[in-house]
């Protein structure tokens, strides 16, 4: 059929964002575009061991990527949530699960009953005892969830933890197999159309000139196109999210293979622990205003739980996003468009959302302003809602042991978050939004885990007699326990389904 002329899409940057974009466009819009990716091997990629959200599964499925193959190739593990240690108080630990509390099907949210008993002074275990996802995670087990919504085993979802350095080449093979072109080279100049301001071509170090219709900036923090060339302003959120560096240090795996990522609070930030099949990724995300690179390197070296595999490597960043992610004929995907620290594993999710929107709003020969506006509206909404969720983790703390924690505990927060917190504190209400990645159960997990405990509850939760409610909670905990017992260990599940080939 006669369609619009095929668009020449030029992608700058060959990291996770670049190759995810290339593979998706080549697979899903073969008639609409040709894909040409420019990357330089001289520039390293940030990939530090990546934890994801369950949405990644839909992305893989859309690209026809078989799970076991993908897991083996990227030395991936399964992820049921994130464990937060020492956040509200030193010694605290909670899991933010990919799943619900209770059976997930009642008219009144489970945490309302939990809050009622808690307020009545009745000893109830922490709420994670009533989440199957949390309990499976805590006991290092794994099985895929049931698709029957009546079953308890349907109350969780899962994502992956994998080696991002291996994911990009994996996607590259797929993209190139679908016809995407790749050019090795460093961009030294960006030519812009004098009239429209659009990008006309890239000039590489070799002198080669790469012309295109649509330019996707996947150059990471450097933001070569959206920042340097287009000059789109960056909205700085470091007043709320002061962490601006990370010291990354992989180590050998030690102990049981956890089906979750850990985020451990530190004196001037927090450190991640991401278990992979062949090693464990670690990194200390910190604020340079509150600690030095040297101290951070020492702290991460002391924090890892296996033999270090490299010296600490320092990455620099700033929290925030571009005012607009799509300007003229330049679309930012990934870190070029914005950065939010990996506390809730949102980086790849944000890449995926930008790609999904780009697919849905893919331009004809001339880019319609309405396409750009819609892209920017939806993407900005995503960033803004995640921002509030991240700030909550820092702000809702009782820690007074370092200047960093004193700062985040007492800083002014966005009104949008202050109202949300107050509603939860009063009566356990979670502000409902249709769009945005984190749903009610996520907010409940983090509020309670951060000791934002409601002083009231939904009046309907007072209806069942106390004894009956307590008995029901015990029965639920027992059923969760039985369900967990019947699952294989995470390690055994991986060995059976998706073990990596022996590492070279």
């Amino acid at each position, binding site marked *: 059929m006669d369609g619009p002329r095929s668009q020449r899409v030029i992608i700058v940057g060959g990291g996770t964002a670049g190759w995810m974009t290339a593979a998706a466009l080549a697979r899903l819009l073969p008639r609409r575009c040709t894909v040409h990716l420019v990357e330089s091997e001289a520039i390293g990629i940030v990939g530090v061991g990546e934890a994801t959200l369950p949405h990644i599964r839909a992305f893989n499925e859309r690209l026809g990527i078989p799970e076991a193959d993908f897991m083996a190739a990227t030395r991936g593990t399964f992820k049921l949530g994130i464990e937060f240690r020492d956040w509200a108080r030193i010694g605290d630990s909670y899991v933010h699960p990919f799943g619900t509390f209770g059976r997930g099907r009642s008219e009144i949210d489970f945490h309302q009953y939990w809050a009622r008993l808690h307020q009545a002074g009745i000893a109830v275990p922490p709420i994670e005892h009533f989440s199957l996802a949390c309990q499976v995670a805590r006991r290092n087990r794994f099985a895929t969830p049931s698709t029957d919504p009546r079953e308890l085993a349907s109350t969780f979802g899962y994502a992956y933890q994998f080696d991002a350095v291996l994911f990009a080449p994996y996607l590259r093979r797929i993209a190139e197999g679908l016809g995407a072109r790749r050019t090795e080279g460093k961009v030294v100049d960006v030519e812009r159309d004098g009239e429209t301001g659009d990008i006309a071509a890239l000039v590489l170090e070799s002198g080669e000139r790469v012309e295109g219709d649509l330019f996707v900036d996947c150059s990471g923090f450097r933001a070569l196109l959206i920042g340097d060339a287009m000059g789109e302003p960056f909205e700085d959120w470091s007043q709320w999210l002061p962490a601006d560096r990370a010291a990354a240090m992989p180590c050998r795996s030690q102990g049981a293979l956890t089906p979750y990522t850990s985020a451990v609070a530190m004196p001037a930030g927090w450190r991640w622990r991401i278990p992979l099949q062949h090693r464990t990724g670690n990194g200390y995300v910190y604020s340079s205003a509150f600690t030095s690179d040297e101290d951070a390197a020492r702290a991460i070296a002391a924090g890892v739980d296996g033999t270090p595999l490299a010296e600490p490597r320092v990455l620099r960043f700033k929290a925030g996003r571009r005012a607009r992610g799509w300007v003229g004929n330049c679309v930012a995907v990934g870190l070029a468009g914005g950065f939010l620290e990996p506390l809730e594993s949102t980086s790849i999710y944000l890449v995926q959302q930008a790609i999904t929107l780009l697919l849905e709003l893919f331009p*004809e020969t001339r880019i319609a302003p309405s396409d750009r506006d819609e892209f920017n509206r939806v993407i900005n909404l995503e960033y803004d809602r995640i921002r509030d969720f991240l700030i909550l983790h820092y702000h809702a703390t009782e820690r007074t042991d370092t200047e960093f924690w004193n700062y985040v505990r007492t800083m002014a927060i966005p009104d949008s978050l202050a109202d949300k917190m107050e509603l939860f504190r*009063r009566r356990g209400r979670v502000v409902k939004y249709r769009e945005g990645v984190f749903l009610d159960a996520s907010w409940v997990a983090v509020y309670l885990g951060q000791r934002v405990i409601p002083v009231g509850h939904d009046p309907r939760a007072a209806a069942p007699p106390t004894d009956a409610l307590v008995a029901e909670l015990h029965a639920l905990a027992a059923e969760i326990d039985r369900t967990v017992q019947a699952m294989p260990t995470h390690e055994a599940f991986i060995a059976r389904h998706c073990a990596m080939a022996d590492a070279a």
Partner: protein
Amino acid sequence: MSSGEPIRRIAIAGDGIVAWSAAAALRRRMPWLSVALVRAPVAPGAMADCIASTLPSILGFHDDLALRDDDAVQRTGAAVRLGTAFEGWVEASPGYFHGYGAHGRPFGTASFQQHWIRAAQAGDARPFHDYSPAAALALGGRFVPPDPSPSAPLGRFEYGLVLDLPRYRAMMRALALHSGVSETGDLAGVERRADGGVAGLHLTNGNRVTADLFVDATGPAALLRAGAGGGREDWSRELLCDRVVIADAADAREAPPYDRVEARADGWQWTASAARSTQTGRCFSSRHGTPEPDGEVAELSPGTWERPWLGNCVAIGDAAIAIEPLEWSNLHLAHSAIDRIVAMLPDRDCVDIELAEYNRQTLAEARRVRDFVLLHYVTARRAEPFWQASAAVALPQTLEHTLIQFRERGRLPVHEEETFARDSWAAVLFGQGVVPRRVDPLIEDTDPAASARAMTSFHGELISAVRAAPPSRAFHDQQGRSAR
């Protein structure tokens, strides 16, 4: 922090379907509350109390009250309605049908709507409603409940009810009283607190009713809420119809399981039939120079309180939101308010932050319903001054965004608290001849011929399934027998 004093007593003012539904729902869903109803007569302008046609959500409202169909539907003489037939909204164009629920069956990499758009651009599409199971049943005069299998041709559709209003109100009143609601007398006056809140309700029998929370279901006069202060958001610059005339007649004629909405020079008129009664009505603009018709003319001032819930008084139904009955959202909005009161009930102190969240959701919902109603006018094409003026109104930003996205590429952004599903928006837009300029590029992976075959095949299955379904009258008779 929270005062911790729970709400124990609620007083509801009103005497129509909205007031009695609120009384029954609040008492049944929160049985520890004491619920009193103070009668206040229903004004003819109270659309939520006076409009017989309802949306599919009414069935969910019944479920939450544990009301069975034979009690709520058959014994009250209600009839099923699968959608609305629109006539005359676009000159020289055949009418269209807005059937509830899904249209078509998705396949390949894009939604069914995109397949339809591509076919329409090629001039090769049946009307969109030909792919609506609800429309197919309705226009065939037939009815069966939706098939639980989503892939069945008669799966994934929805239906609402046409109420026999006096009988339905009587049923709801009986249910409320049976559930323990006390009917205390007739409203004589409202006693105010210093801050404008309600201190108590004075009755004609000399008694005084106090409560922790007052629910205003008194219709557009908003007898309780109006005195509490705060501003209104006015929609009369966008929605030009400001008069409604309704006539209810008892009859027992063979009526189809849908209603008709016909555009006229100065507005529109409708016909909707329950089992033994028929409602007809007219909605029009008094500024567009037509003589007043016979019957009692109700005035309509479209708009909403900026804060439907203020202090210890929450307005529901027409006391909160006034909008013309096009697309029959009135009782739905009242039900939605009742559900929201149940889900968000604060303490006795009704602190602002909790009410603000209630009001945020309520306004988001109301504005999107306004957008959907307004959509009909701004995409209609008729030459009369009323229609020209309606098409030229300044659009609310949210509707403008929807129209730009749809006209450009068939995208329908979902907003917070949306009442009408994408399929409903598409049914009206396609029905009124708005075809997007472009199609979603993701569809290009599917060959147009394969699209056409799949669409034809679905349509064929639908026709056969409808032929095998019983006439809607038979369905009602059978249900009626089983109810006895």
